[in-house]
């Protein structure tokens, strides 16, 4: 057998399998990244796609009911109620005013059912440059 074929076949087989796995992995887990405004514009098709919505956690909106955690995400004036019922504990950075990302699907009742929450501390790991306003102790 030709040497190129001898090496080419297994290489093609490996790359083919991986490509197939990757393609399957992408189509099964792809998540559309949306802001609350974009979510509202999507209309009914928002309900069949897996979505990741970002916003700030509205102050005093976090409540726990059994394993579920309810809260409201805000983006400017827009609000989106979210119910989280995932297994993983919520991150410590998840608190009032934090930037949060919720992964899940939008229910027909307009409540977002999240299976995963990521949160950044309001000051992130790093104080955002714009928020670094020094306080004058004398004033």
């Amino acid at each position, binding site marked *: 057998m030709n*040497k190129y074929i*001898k*090496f080419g076949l*297994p*290489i093609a087989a*490996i*790359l083919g*399998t*991986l490509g197939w*796995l*990757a393609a*399957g*992995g*992408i189509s*099964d*887990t*792809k*998540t*559309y*990244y949306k802001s609350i405004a974009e979510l509202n514009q999507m209309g009914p098709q928002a309900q069949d796609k897996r979505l*990741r919505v970002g916003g700030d956690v509205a102050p005093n909106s976090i*409540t*726990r*009911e*059994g*394993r579920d955690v309810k809260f409201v995400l805000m983006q400017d004036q827009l609000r989106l109620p979210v119910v989280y019922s995932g*297994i*993983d*504990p*919520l*991150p*410590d*950075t998840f*608190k009032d005013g934090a930037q949060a*990302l919720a*992964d899940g699907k939008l229910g027909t009742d307009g409540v977002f059912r999240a299976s*995963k929450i*990521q*949160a*950044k*501390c309001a*000051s*992130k*790991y*790093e*104080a*955002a*440059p714009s928020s*670094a306003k*020094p*306080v*004058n*102790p004398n004033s």
Partner: protein
Amino acid sequence: MENIGSLAILLAFCFAIYSIAASLAGKWAKRPFLVLSGERAVYCVWALLSTAAGVLIYSLISGDYRMTYVWAHSNHAMPTIYKFASWWGGQEGSLLFWSWLLATYSGVVVYRSRRRFRDMMPYVTSVLMATQAFFLILVAFVAKPFNVLEEGRLIVNVGDGQGLNPLLQYWTMVIHPPMLYLGYVGFTVPFAFAIASLITKQPGEEWIKTTRRWTLVTWLFQTTGILLGAGWAYAVLGWGGYWGWDPVENASLLPWITATAFLHSVMMQEKKGMMKVWNIVLVSTTFFLCIFGTMLTRSGVVNSVHAFAQSSIGTYFSTFLAMGIAGTVFLILSRLNYLKSEAQLESVLSRESTFLFNNLILLASCFAVLWGTLFPVISEAVTGEKITVDAPFFNRVEIPIAMFLLLLTGVGPLIAWRKSSFESLKKAFTWPLVSGVAVAAGLAALGVHHIYALVSFLLCTFVAVTVFMEFVKGANAIRQKSGTNLATAMVELTHRNTRRYGGYLVHMGIVIMFIGFTGKAFDKDTTVEVNPNSALKIGAYQLRVGSVEEGQNEDYQWSRLPVDVTKNGEDLGTLEPEHRVYLAQKQPTSEVAIRRNLNEDVYLNFAGMSADGQRAVLQAYVFPLVTWIWIGYWVVFMGTLICLTPSKSRLIWARTQVVGVAEKHADVQN
């Protein structure tokens, strides 16, 4: 003080530029003293950056809150060690840290290699200093660590700083970032050598030996950094995992994968003179992935839990990357003639081909991780919609890849160079395969039906047995000659060929880590709201919850939930998960309590009180086999150290054996 720091950085930048100019001019004009002054300039850069770093550390520890950086990352209440660690706690400081490490590495390289690689050194110095100059542009002009807080035109001194993010106030913060940085930065050195060898058309293999050692050292740092990060995530972040395929984690994994590929394929070049172009490509890719990784963590290109402040710094990095990659590609293309392979692949069943497949698989895995990490960026560019892929995507692709790699880990070292017969394969692999299948069948009979777990345990056994057989075979040969016992013979064997047997030990460590990873398939968890003084059950464990204790110190407020753990009536002691609220940042954190054991960890997280304030929210997990990951790391660590120790006999047998070059007959090094 801050003026001294800024000035030192500016001067360091000038010296770096001077060093490039002097080295190159000295080389081209054949003026040794210019080259020498270029090398001396490297030491100056180090001294200046050490001064700048010293100023920053002094300001952090003494609490000079006039400075923006100190104010943003330090405060009075923090223990001194974290004040020190704030050096790399933020953007500006960590870039300075990068520069300082590169300066240190450069100093060591120049000092160690100044006589050995006379003709290459000017280029090595130039590449190192060009990278240095790039980072100094960032530190000196874009992300300045020595800015002071001002109001109008007055410098203000605020009483106290904001403090380091509480999640970072954990002992690994002191060593995890430095380890990763040592890894990231260290890969600049092999790259510099590769470029210099291309420019000077190096014929010999001497430089590749130096490069291999450097890569091995930095690889060890990178491995340590990644594992420390995993251990940190596991013990601090309270989500019970150690790896989440987060962009920043991926960024540290990418150069690790290509460096691993290089450490394998470099053997092909040393022993058979093959894959020369490929090795240069791997070294360069590793370097660029390191820069790329730094960019990912610094610029906020993709969303991450870790990502630092969004900043314009990404543009600088892209420019540097584009220029560097273009230059490297051009250089490789123009030197193709000098990189011709000295031998050809002969058979699919050969050591060479396992190296080929090893590299193919590693690169494919690297590409998959890169693709998944950048998917939001790519999809937005192509379709206009930002689409992310998550952990399931990575697991789906990477688990089969990892299984295949594990298989190669077992097969590769036993298969003969050039061509292997089915007979010899049967002889080498019968026992490993039989043991692997036996273990998998046994586990299946015991009720394990997770298919990947079974495959993984099969392969782990397979590789472990092959490694063990190799040791026994070699040790027996020694024992027959010298009559010592088996253990002494194994030590002797390892000492005779440290690279080979150290490498086996690293493989063994990886196998042990895989056993730990596979434990992930059997996790158990529960989240409950519990009344004080009640009991619950998870797996074979009974948990008896006590009542919440509370208190406060100057750094944080804490509440603690004591939980007595018993297993089948046997008392395993009390775990005390803690919930803290840091005062300066008003941020809650969880201090999980873990009872570590070889077979499984009991992991408790006290997530605070329920809405009505009456009950405690307790998350309880059982994580099987996690400890094996950390044990595996130590085996990898030992193995790598052994690889770095020189062998007792320095005969180069392998090359003469396989290539059969007559004039190289038992060529004794040095």
